[in-house]
Every structure is written in C-alpha cells, then in structure tokens.
C-alpha cells in the first residue's frame, strides 16, 4: 500500500530550486520546475551522490561540431560528484539512459483544508488550512 507523505509547504521550494526532505525513512530530493513539483530518490545510482545538492541545468545539445544549443533549461539535475544528469521529471539518466534511472516518486500539491480532512497519520509536520503543501507518494 502506498502512503502519501506531506513533506514541505509549497513556498519552501521556489521554482528552480530543490530541497532535501525525508519521507517514510527515505531521503528524497524535491524539485520545483516552473511551479510543478517532482521527487527523486536522493541517491545517484552511479556512486550515491546526493542529488539535492546538485546543480539544476539544461541539456547542451549539438547537431554537429560548432553548432550548440541549450534545451530544456532547468529540467535536469547534475549529480554533485561526477556530473551525471537526470531528467527531474522522470529520473531517467541522460548519461546512460538505457541502464540507469533514479527512483522517481509522485509529487502533488494539495491544499491544507483538503489535507486536514484525512485520512493521514499525523507526525510532526504542522498543517494549516490556509496553506498549500507538497505531498509525495511512496
């Protein structure tokens, strides 16, 4: 059975930034890409670098030597260690797409008045009806 974890308020993670959160005992890197929230396991599959401290980047592409373009700005996270790039929306690796993927979790925004209706297990994160929250499903 999946559980839904309230991990942050919406205004804690500004667009273009990330935040390390914890849900169900797991470290999760939470990203805000243009107002949408995405959650990845905070562990690079290569050598376990912490993705929440990686730079958020675009994809540098080239059709031929000397012709470059930057695509999909802000949609990739680059591991802080060896620079492996992952699609924040899916966890798919850009360096090794066929074999490597970071676990991605469903992240949604819900209003406080919806959340307080339950059912939920109240731990330590205070929820008020006036605010919006990011909920990660594990």
């Amino acid at each position: 059975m999946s559980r839904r974890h309230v991990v942050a308020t919406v205004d804690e993670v500004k667009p273009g930034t990330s935040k390390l959160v914890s849900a169900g005992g797991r470290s999760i890197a939470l990203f805000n890409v243009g107002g949408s929230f995405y959650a990845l396991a905070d562990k690079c599959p290569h050598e376990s670098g912490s993705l929440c401290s990686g730079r958020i980047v675009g994809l540098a592409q080239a059709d031929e030597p000397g012709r470059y373009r930057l695509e999909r700005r802000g949609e990739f996270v680059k591991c802080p260690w060896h620079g492996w790039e992952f699609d924040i929306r899916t966890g798919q690796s850009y360096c090794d797409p066929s074999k490597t993927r970071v676990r991605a979790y469903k992240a949604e925004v819900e209003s406080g008045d919806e959340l307080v209706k339950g059912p939920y297990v109240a731990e330590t994160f205070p929820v008020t009806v006036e605010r919006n929250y990011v909920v990660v499903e594990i």
Partner: protein
Amino acid sequence: MSTTVLERAPAAQRGTPTPVKLSVIDCDIHPQVKSPAELMPFLPKQWQDYARMFGGLYRQVFSDTLSHPRIAPDVARADAWPPDGSPPGSDVPFMRMQHLDANNVEYGMLMPLNRGPGNQRNLDYGAALASAVNDWQIEKYVKAEPRLRASIVIAHDDPPAAIAEIRKRAGNRNFTQIMMPPKSIEPLGRRRYWPIFEEAVAQNLPIALHVGGVNGFPPTGGGWPSYYIEEQHTNVQGMQGLLTSLVIEGVFERFPDLKVVLVEGGIAWLPALKWRLDKHWKRLKAEAPHLRLAPSEYIRRNIWLTTQPLDEPDRDSDLAETFELVGFDRIMFSTDYPHWDFDEPRFLLGKLKIGKENIEKIFSGNAKALYGLA
C-alpha cells in the same frame, strides 16, 4: 487506499552519507587554504614580502591557476563547500564529518597541490613555499586530525634544496612520503633528479607522483587539447610517459629500493604498457644495455598505483582481471576528496569480485605495508 503521513524536513540541505563499515586508507586527500593568507605565517618574512610584492610564477601566463578550466570551481564536488562557504578541503571539521568519518577512513594521505612549490620559476621561493606547505599540513591538518598524514613537498628543480627539505622532515612519522609533480622541466627519469631519488631511498620514503603540475609543455605529444575531456585523459598519457622515462633511464636499476606511487593516473593502461615496453626492450636493448631486467619487472617491483578515478569498463569482471594483471598487492584505494571525480569506497567494493583478502589489501593492507602504518 492511501494514507498521508506528515513529515518534518531534515535541517541540512545536504544528504548525510551512511557510514561504511569497512575501514579504508585513502591515499589521495586534498587539503586547501581558506585564503592565500593562510600560508603566510609559515613563510619567512623575506618570502612573505616576496609573495605580496611579486607572487608566484610558473611556466605559463597564469601565475596561480591551472591551464584548463575544470568542470567545477576548485575542481570540487558540488557538495564539498563547508557551511561557511570556504573552499572545499579547507575546513578540517567539515572534512572529518563529510569524508573521514562517513567513509570510515583509518588513515588519509594528504596531497597538497597548493601554490605548486615544485613548479615555481624562482627556485628559492619554491623551496621556501615547499617548507611552508609542509609546516602548514602538520599544524592545520595532522595536529587536528591524527588520521591524516602529510607528504613532504619539495622544489625538485633545485635538488640540494629538495634534499635539505627531505632531511628536515625525515624521521617525523607524520610525513609518510615525498611528493613531486610529474610535470617537470625534464622527464622525471633524467639524472638531474637522481639525487632526490637517492635521498628518498636513504630515508626509506616512497615518492608520490600526483597528476598535475605546470611545466609549460602541452600535456600531449600532439599539442594543446581543446576540451577538458581530452585534458583529463592526458593524465594517463602523462603517467605512461613518466613511467617509461623512469624505467628506461635506469632509475630502478640504479635505485632498486625506490618506491614510486602513481596517484590519480588510472590503472587499466599499465598491463598494455608493460607488454609493449617488454617487446621493445627485447629488440632494442642494445640501446639501453643498463636495463638488466625487462621493463615489466622494474614496474612490478618499484611501482604502486592508486584507484581513483577508477576505470569503469562495461563488465566489472574486466576490471577485476585488470587488477590481477597489475598486481593486487600494488593497488591502493584513493578517493581524491574533495575533488569532483571523487570515488566512493562502497562503489569500488561493489565492482570488484576479487575475494576478501584482495579487497582488504587494496582498501588498507597495501598502504599499511608501503607506509609502515600499524
């Protein structure tokens, strides 16, 4: 049905590594100054004034930096900046938390690259700087963190000064080895450097050759590379050239007890170099009759290598086979902390199916034997 759980976020915006169980000896850790002023108190007044008025001078247009831009500022892991924003590697408590404790480091060998004393054009300034870097390693790092060991930095283009510096430190067990930049004015096998090798043998200290240095020459035989990817790979070409020079010039014939550690130059190229040098030697030994052994025999006897950056073939079994060809007793674990191409001990463990005994040798046994650590 799903249940919603409310969670509190951890305080720090940084993943905390899970401690690894196996203890390791890390043969490549980079210390760093918080600012250039940090080295000043270790320099005599004359050289403090010199550093302020003139500064360092390498054989390149830039005085205190590298020839190529790297992937990241300070060549560092993006998560290696201490909370106060000071440079990666410059804060001992942070290094202890992020690396020494987290990765269960039993001993760590410091590899200071700071200000490149060995490549300074002003040899007297280079010698003063080398001595300052040596005192600084002890005062700042080894005294605060007894797991760390210093390397004797020398200005190798002034062998008498280099020998004086080695003698000043020899006998102090906080120094485990002599460190020279492999990029020197002439290939390191040339006789101008032999007095240093002689002193290393006399003091029973290994010589560590950590990739890098600034000697004004392009790092490839074909000229300057355009990309960092190319420049990264010149570490391998450079190590091959360096090792070929040491072997063919007869360094290991003259100094059979010399121990040389090649740091951060890779490993997988070594078997191919041995095969090729042996082949050439068999046909051409009339040119170098001083070589009584095959090149591969000197390499097997006198050379140690460190693991990082680990070669990553598609099949892990290829790596295990390569390690066997190099010699399980000649490979020592290293991370390169806090640099961006850091290798995690758990990562290496997962790759190598070579038996518990060989794993233990690579992670600590070989370094203990080489450096005489308990």
